[in-house]
């Protein structure tokens, strides 16, 4: 089942990519149908899910026995919500209308390829396999930005690629460090979770931790490793931004849990405070820099840093202290994973919205707009929902994450939490300012012909925001899945 989730989009990518020119119009329908299949499969996986410390529904295959490399996939309560997010976000982003510059087959093939690689990252239970999928996502994203981007797309794509590739090289060193500490030599993540290879957090464990931390901090991204993000988002096409923010950033925070927290618990505890401080700086810094933006996409990009900082704060708190406060740390870790899902849904929606705005206005500069509510009520309404979601309104998923992380982390780092809740005020200011500048007030003559969202755009945004509302109102079905693993993880630490 899990293998099928990876393979089906991969095969789909091949089929779509190799379509003859005369059949090019088939690319879109084929791609959409293919990308929808993993969503159905994920629901089945979700229904069979039991939960616990170790991953389940494992599928494995010998690959390179001499090196201890295996093909091994499985899910736990941390990865399953992210797999589900991926399964929802990809079909939806692909369905979003975009001027494909006549390269439809290539576009859909790359997106399907990227989808398969993303599933691979979240499902892989072998470090070698994990690394391969990790780097494949970079390749896919590079082409999406470089080919279908606008502005200085090539430069931005290159910056994104080189920067994150640097991170993955740091990770490679970390992987080798871990690998060399195992005996018999193995890349098996399950074994590494069961018996962490570098107990005690000595120099070697610290260096390995550092290697992974650099990779994940770049990917998440947290201050000061974030400067690849704004240009990549600004120049990427709307669906590309949605996938980049919605899925690819999550790989950083997912890595922190999957590898740093689970495989290097002692080193993690040692550096948890430093990590928490970096995340609080990111939370406050991202919000403030975002407040000063006039470019819609840069604004959203910097709020991503705040939200991802919140996720890392929850993770850092979860692994922060020895014993005690088990309940609070569990809540924090639950909140961190909810935060990943919530950010994926809401920020993806915001990026798609900015894509729609750009398609109509060819600018992201917010001060140029005003009063669009009268011309585009559907766009305005959905943006209002997404913006309030971003600022953490109860009834939307982000609030569940905010309150869980803050309440949970307070027991471990009270001062840091007090500093970071201030960001909630700044987030409110910047999102409401954005709404005011773009949608409220008098309508400028220039936008008299501004058109509202079409049916596909509306449907796509609703299918992203509706789950955010469902999670916000009744989060139990999601939190319980996360908690099934998070509880065991925190309990063991």
């Amino acid at each position, binding site marked *: 089942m899990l293998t099928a989730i990876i393979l089906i989009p991969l095969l789909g990518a091949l089929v779509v990519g190799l379509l003859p020119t005369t059949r090019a119009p088939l690319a879109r329908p084929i791609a959409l149908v293919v990308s929808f299949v993993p969503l159905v499969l994920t629901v089945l996986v979700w229904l069979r899910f039991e939960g616990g410390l170790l991953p389940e529904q494992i599928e494995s295959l010998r690959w390179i026995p001499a090196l201890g490399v295996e093909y091994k996939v499985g899910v736990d309560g941390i990865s399953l919500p992210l797999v589900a997010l991926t399964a929802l976000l990809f079909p939806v982003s692909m369905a979003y209308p975009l001027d494909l510059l006549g390269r439809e087959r290539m576009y859909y093939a790359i997106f399907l390829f990227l989808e398969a690689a993303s599933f691979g990252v979240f499902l892989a239970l072998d470090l070698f396999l994990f690394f391969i999928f990790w780097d494949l996502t970079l390749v896919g994203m590079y082409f999406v930005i470089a080919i279908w981007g606008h502005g200085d797309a090539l430069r931005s794509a290159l910056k994104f690629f080189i920067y994150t590739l640097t991170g993955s090289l740091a990770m490679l060193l970390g992987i080798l460090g871990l690998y060399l500490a195992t005996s018999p030599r193995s890349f098996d993540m399950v074994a590494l979770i069961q018996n962490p290879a570098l107990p005690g957090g000595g120099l070697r464990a610290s260096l390995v931790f550092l290697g992974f931390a650099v990779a994940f901090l770049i990917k998440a991204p947290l201050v000061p490793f974030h*400067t690849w993000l704004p240009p990549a988002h600004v120049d990427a096409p709307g669906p590309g931004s949605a996938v980049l923010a919605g899925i690819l950033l999550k790989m950083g925070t997912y890595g922190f849990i999957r590898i740093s927290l689970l495989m290097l618990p002692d080193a993690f505890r040692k550096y948890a405070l430093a990590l928490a401080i970096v995340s609080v700086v990111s939370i406050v810094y991202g919000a403030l820099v975002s407040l*000063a933006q006039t470019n819609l996409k840069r604004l959203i990009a910097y709020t991503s840093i705040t939200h991802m900082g919140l996720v890392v704060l929850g993770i850092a708190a979860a692994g922060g202290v020895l014993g005690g406060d088990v309940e*609070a740390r569990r809540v924090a870790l639950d909140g961190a994973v909810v935060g990943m899902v919530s950010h994926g849904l809401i920020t993806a929606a915001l990026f798609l919205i900015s894509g729609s705005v750009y398609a109509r206005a060819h600018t992201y500069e917010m001060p140029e707009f005003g009063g669009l509510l009268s011309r585009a009520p559907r766009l305005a309404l959905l943006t209002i929902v997404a913006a*309030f979601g971003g600022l953490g*309104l109860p009834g939307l998923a982000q609030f569940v994450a905010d309150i869980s992380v803050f309440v949970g982390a307070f027991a471990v780092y009270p001062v840091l939490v007090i500093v970071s*809740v201030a960001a909630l005020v700044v987030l409110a200011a910047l999102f*409401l300012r954005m709404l005011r500048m773009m949608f409220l007030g*008098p309508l400028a003559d220039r936008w008299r012909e501004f058109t509202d969202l079409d049916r596909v755009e509306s449907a796509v945004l609703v299918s992203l925001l509706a789950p955010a509302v469902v999670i916000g109102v009744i989060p139990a079905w999601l939190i319980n899945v996360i*908690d099934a693993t998070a*509880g065991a993880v925190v309990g063991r630490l």
Partner: protein
Amino acid sequence: MIWLPIFLPVIAALAVGFAAPRRRLGAAAALAMAATAALGLWAALSGASADLAWGGLLQLRFELTGAAAILIVLVPVVAAPVIAFATWEYADDPDLRRLVGLLLAFVGSMELLVAAGDLVSLVIGWELVAAFSWALIAHHWRAPKPPQAALEAYLTVRFGGVGLFIAAGAVFASTGSLNYAALAGTSRPWLDVAAAGLLLAAASKSAQVPFSQWLFSAMEGPAPVSALLHSATMVAAGAYALIRLAPFFAPLGWFGPTVIAIGMISALAGGVVASVQTDFKRVLAGSTTAQYGLMFVAIGVASTTAATAHLITHAFFKSLLFLGAGVALATAGTGNLAHLRLGSGKRVVAVFFGVGVLALAAVPPLGGAFSKEAILAAAVDYSPWVGAGVFLAGFVSAFYAARLFTLAFSVVGGDPGGMGSAVGEGQGLVGSGGSRSTARGLLSGEVWSMGLLAGISVLMGLLRVPAVWRRLEQLSVAREAAEPFWQLAVSLLAIMVAFTAVRVLHRRGRLLSLGLAPYTQARVADWFGAPFLARRGIAEPTFAFAILLRRFDDRVIDMGVWGIAEPTFAFAILLRRFDDRVIDMGVWGIARAALRSAGRLRSLDERIVDGAVRGVAWATMRGAAGSRTADDLGIDGAVEWIARASWWSGRQVRRLQTGLTHQYYVVVVVGLVLVLAVTAVAT
């Protein structure tokens, strides 16, 4: 059971937004509110409670204990006439449906907040109420001002609201639970943090000093929104949360005095602002801060009963007063007290409004009087100084209440426009209404709504009935303080003094300006310049700092990346050159040298060896031909041959001018060799 009073307004909001016929909106909304009140009463009487698993360790709790049992009914009862009023007043507003839907949802959120039995539910209600108030204040969103005002109001409340996140974190860290009951078991430093967080949130929500000015921003919303926001929702939430949770903070020595201090400062400062304001709605806004200040004082002296009683009476008379403001706005086209002379033409409105004014001034037997006296009694019992402060605040409220009524409804203005109009400029409510600058008559629905609220305000006098008061005490904490017999007499005297002062000032034509210089009055009336200070001291520096950070981000941090990338790149270019010039040069140097020598050899081969062979052959041929023709031609032939030879050698020499250096080299070399050979032969 307990869900019904929460979800009925929400369902009604959705129904109104999508389905209900426009003409019946008012009736439908009022009916929904009445049903909500009935369900709330039923739920409160049956002691309903509910737990909701939120996932993981988080559990939401809803219960109707203490003041919640009262507010769950109070909120929809106040909302019914207010929303009905809105449907009349905004009958021709194309966005009426949205207005009514949002008002209903606003009520639903407040019901959620009231029913909350744990801190997460409280935060949920708290933030939802704020969000709906944002949408309501920005109702006239096409104008430039209301969206900005909504933003300012929301941010102020949000700033305090983060206190609840901190409070929740502290309680959970100490007890592992978020229920209100867990506060009882919270240990000391955590309890202090929780108390501070809650107080911050409550003070901002109830528009206490220093957060009061957000109520002025909120004035950009329609009058019914203000009526609801100031009375039973939003602003009431702050006082309500304190009433509900303050008893848990009794062990903290600093908590009571701090609440008293905040309340007292707000009561007096709000009183002064209301007394000097020249804008109808802003007088009421100042009085809201002042009245909630009194409630805070009551909570601080540990008499939540008195605070609850005042919350109830205030809810009715303040919503009544705001509806009156709405009528004034709609019929006179202005809210500026310098120009407002509603006079006898609006006698019904004047009567109803007068009831609200008397309640605000705390004239017995209106309910507002008894709840204020209860606060005064508890304050006097706590400390004579606090008692004196409350007494003074009561006097000021009687003054501004009478002043407002006199200025708004007097037929002949004692005041010429003068200073007041200068102050009033720019604060008028005309802008918020947009289209309603023309005067119009009174609508029956408006009268009915006001009449209902006035009637209830009168009925609130029943609070004085001991049986009712005891029932109220059972739901809260009462400070056991017998009201001294002389207290009511002194209060009445103060009210009479205040009324007389208003009368005298009116006669002298100074009621509007109070003899203050326009600039001073404008500053004091605008919260002593607090909005200016907030803008200059908080908003602008924050924004400037944000812009600074943005530049720092763009230039420095990103530079750091480029700082690594660019030297790397430069080094790479250096390496490329090294590679091209030095290492490659070596290889090419050898290869090129080899090639060049090969080329030379080839040309040597072609020109010299091959040329020699050809030259010999040609000479042989020539010689043979020459010997054949020498006979034929003889001397003549010899002459001809010389001519031909010179032509040929000229051509050959021309051919040598190829421009190819190496060929010249060859020629030079050959020439040199010849010269050397000739020289050698000659010597």
